């Protein structure tokens, strides 16, 4: 079972009633083959970086799921055939998530092993939207406790 992420763009003039059945259908394709849908989220209408099928905007929909490789082929076929979908991108994410998890565990182990050493508060880790809230060795919290 591999984890995938599917991001596809639907025409901006498509209504909710047209888009929702499409998403349900895709979810059905995944679950029929024994996969699991982790997340389905709509980003709404966004301006595109370049014209796609003569549209300047599009509705982005993200689908995260775990499935067998064969399922992805069927899923992409459905997306290609559908008139509402103008662009799609399938990304395999299991290796990446494994690596991130490994790094996170390494950091935690390192933080737990070493005694908290005094570190100058000059370099503080900024809060970025993508970074999950993991404890960072030598974070400002320890500096404050000094």
């Amino acid at each position, binding site marked *: 079972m591999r984890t995938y992420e599917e*991001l596809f*763009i639907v025409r901006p003039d498509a209504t909710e009633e047209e888009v929702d059945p499409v998403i349900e259908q895709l979810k059905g394709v995944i679950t029929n083959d024994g996969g699991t849908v982790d997340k389905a989220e709509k980003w709404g209408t966004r301006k*595109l*970086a*370049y014209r*796609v099928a003569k549209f300047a905007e*599009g509705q982005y929909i*993200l689908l995260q799921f775990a499935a067998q490789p064969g399922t992805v082929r069927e899923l992409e076929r459905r997306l290609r055939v559908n008139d509402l979908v103008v*662009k799609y*991108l399938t*990304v395999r994410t299991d290796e*990446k998530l494994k*690596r*991130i998890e490994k*790094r*996170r565990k390494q*950091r935690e182990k390192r933080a737990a092993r070493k005694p908290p050493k005094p570190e100058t508060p000059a*370099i503080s*880790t*900024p809060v*970025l*939207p*993508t*970074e999950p809230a993991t404890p*960072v060795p030598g974070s400002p919290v320890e500096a404050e406790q000094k």
Partner: protein
Amino acid sequence: MPETRGGRPIAASQRPTGGDKAIATGKKQYFRRKKVCRFCVEKIDDINYKDVKLLTNFISERGKITPRRISGVCTPHQKRLAEAIKQARNIALLPFASAV
């Protein structure tokens, strides 16, 4: 002649003989400043194609990917960054080429 720094060849722009700052001050100034990889310092593990705000920091006005020697990113992160930018371009989150 420091052809290598830490065993690695230095880019032409970072060799001491180049650099207008060195010539302007008249001193024998080596490398302007030590560029560190932003991802290594901030410990960002996930360079995602979906996160356009992070990626736009690494593309030029024309939409081209900034080279490693300018942005100061280390090799493995530059590779992942380039891959993410290309994925973002494919799904119209970033332009392939924008007019300047």
